[in-house]
């Protein structure tokens, strides 16, 4: 909305500058499509059993459900630059980060469905996804991701390992004191930390103007003497440009950064949200900036894909998701006795 779409000449220049390849951009397209398909599939299954009355407790998926349709570019601009050994700590809205970090869609879906085969054997649920192999974690408590990612970064630095930790958080979460505390800690100890603020303009029903004294969080980060990038969160290339610098800087032991990515969630805060707090027109304006079709357009302009190829990728993504959901749905529920195990290790 606020960044001009690059001309053909500039697009080629950016691609070169950022060392973007055909494979890389197609892979980004694919991952964004997978996330979109995943979130939409979850939305559809979540709705099962919830009509005529929307009852959070019925149907195959219970409880709150926070989806990230529209925010794909933020996850995909950041996570594919990470390795498995790098840590990501996410939020109550974690699926896109998980998928972009490489979490298996089947085990992710199974957790969301509360199945034994889920990432956490059904104990965690959609806001509490953990994948130890991929160093992925999240939390349903707003503001909790900052210090936990800083702790992982502390461990990496402490052992002299070239690993990076990323904290994702919403623009609402960044009002929480843990953001400021973590900035101080990260700069003080020069932690290999990247904080990514997903600024989707709303925290629940609360528009940014009602919760934030300023237009953007990144301005606050500047007060802590660290690089802070404000990027177009609907443009995966723009997110990636900042993320590459920030992650390299962290990996090389040159300290933390903040990235604020302005984006928009197309769906409600959670499923079932009546969205009284925003207008249909606003949503349509943001949809016009859709990160997937925007990248698709660029792939075409670069001559790296035509409509068929993009449609094929989308179809493949839907297949992957369908298989994941099918896996989840045919997986068994955990045995009730499991509830009493595992408090202590």
């Amino acid at each position, binding site marked *: 909305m606020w960044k001009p779409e690059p001309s053909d000449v500039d697009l080629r220049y950016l691609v070169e500058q950022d060392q973007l390849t055909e494979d890389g951009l197609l892979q980004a397209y694919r991952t964004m499509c997978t996330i979109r398909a995943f979130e939409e599939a979850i939305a559809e299954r979540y709705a099962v059993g919830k009509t005529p009355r929307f009852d959070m407790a019925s149907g195959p998926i219970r409880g709150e459900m926070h989806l990230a349709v529209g925010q794909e570019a933020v996850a995909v601009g950041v996570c594919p630059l990470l390795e498995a050994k790098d840590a990501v700590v996410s939020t109550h809205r974690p699926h896109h980060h998980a998928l972009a970090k490489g979490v298996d869609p089947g085990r992710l879906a199974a957790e969301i469905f509360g199945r034994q085969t889920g990432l956490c054997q059904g104990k965690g649920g959609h806001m509490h996804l953990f994948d130890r192999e991929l160093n992925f974690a999240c939390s349903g408590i707003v503001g909790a991701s900052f210090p936990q990612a800083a702790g992982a970064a502390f461990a990496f630095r402490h052992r002299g390992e070239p690993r990076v930790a990323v904290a994702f958080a919403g623009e*609402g979460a960044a009002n929480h004191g843990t953001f400021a505390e973590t900035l101080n800690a990260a700069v003080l100890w020069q932690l290999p930390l990247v904080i990514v603020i997903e600024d989707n303009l709303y925290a629940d029903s609360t528009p940014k103007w009602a919760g934030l004294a300023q237009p953007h969080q990144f301005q606050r980060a500047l007060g802590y003497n660290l690089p802070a990038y404000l990027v177009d969160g609907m443009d995966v290339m723009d997110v990636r440009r900042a993320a590459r610098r920030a992650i390299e800087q962290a990996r090389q032991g040159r300290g933390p950064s903040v990235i604020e990515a302005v984006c928009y969630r197309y769906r409600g805060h959670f499923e079932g949200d009546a969205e009284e707090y925003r207008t249909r027109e606003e949503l349509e304006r943001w949809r016009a900036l859709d990160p997937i079709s925007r990248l698709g357009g660029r792939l075409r302009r670069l001559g790296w894909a035509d409509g068929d190829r993009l449609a094929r990728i989308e179809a493949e993504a839907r297949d992957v998701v369908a298989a994941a959901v099918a896996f989840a749905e045919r997986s068994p529920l955990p045995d009730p006795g499991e509830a009493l195990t595992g408090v202590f290790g």
Partner: protein
Amino acid sequence: MRKLRGIAAAIAEAVDQEMAADPAVVVLGEDVTYWGAVFGFSMGLMQRYGRERVVDTPITEQTFMGMAVGAAAAGLRPVVSLMFVDFLGAGFDQMFNHMAKNHYMSGGQVAMPVTVLTAVGGGYGDAAQHSQVLYGLFAHLPGFKVVVPATAYDAKGLTTSALRDPNPVLVFGHKLLTGLPFLPFEGLEEEEVPESPYTVELGRAAVRREGRDLTLIAAGLMVHRCLRAADRLAGEGISAEVVDVRTLVPLDVETLVASARRTGRVLIVDEDYQSYGMSGELAFRIQAGAFGALQAPIRRLAVPDVPIPFSEPLERAVIPSVDRICEEARALLGAAAAASSP
């Protein structure tokens, strides 16, 4: 008289009426405007009183709780929403070290008329960080009054008492009693609730059903599960008394003890974690007051000291259900008066 279904509208009405009566009452918290604090406790208030008196705060529990402390000392009567009780950890210091203590520490100078409205409980798949009850934590800390309404009538009357109280009062509203359309409802379907303001005194338990063979003691949602269990047990010829604690602080020890003395057998049903919480406290009070009259050890049924798991069969396994209450009740009646394991 008009009928209400659920505690959410009842709580919101109490706040509304107190706001109408006293301009010092303001509402603070996350999403208290459009969303009525998510669980409806401030529904409609923004429309009526505007954003100056119904204030959406940033997601900063420590700070808006601390602001309530400062504002109360400066003469306002803040009603603060802690959206889910699970979020207490982000603002606990201002609550337990200041809100609860400043009156005492100041030698009685500083009044602290703050009401905290918070949603509690599980049973709808919201997992370990959004399903807790945790009233035991607050009840342990001096300076808080702890209110757990089970009915719409009580919810309105107790909330009105809370707002008029010069002390910090926490109202724990169970999500499955709110009566909101997006959640299961286990409360009373049709309840007569006076439209005009009234109070229900803090510190009085209610005998919800009389019985001879044993006493079931509970609060909030569990009162209703106990009543259903009592119905079922009645079909088996077991007469269960059901006592609704209503307020954990102040605690109506007399009513609990009197019931225990009458029936000689007590089962405490609690949706909070089992250990070091409500069930232990009530057991202490009852054994102290009804020692000779008890025919069997007091039993309890609570969340067995595990986080609330997400998956439905797991969640069902840990939150006390009507089935489990019946089982425990039968076991209590079957048990010899001799020792049994806890």
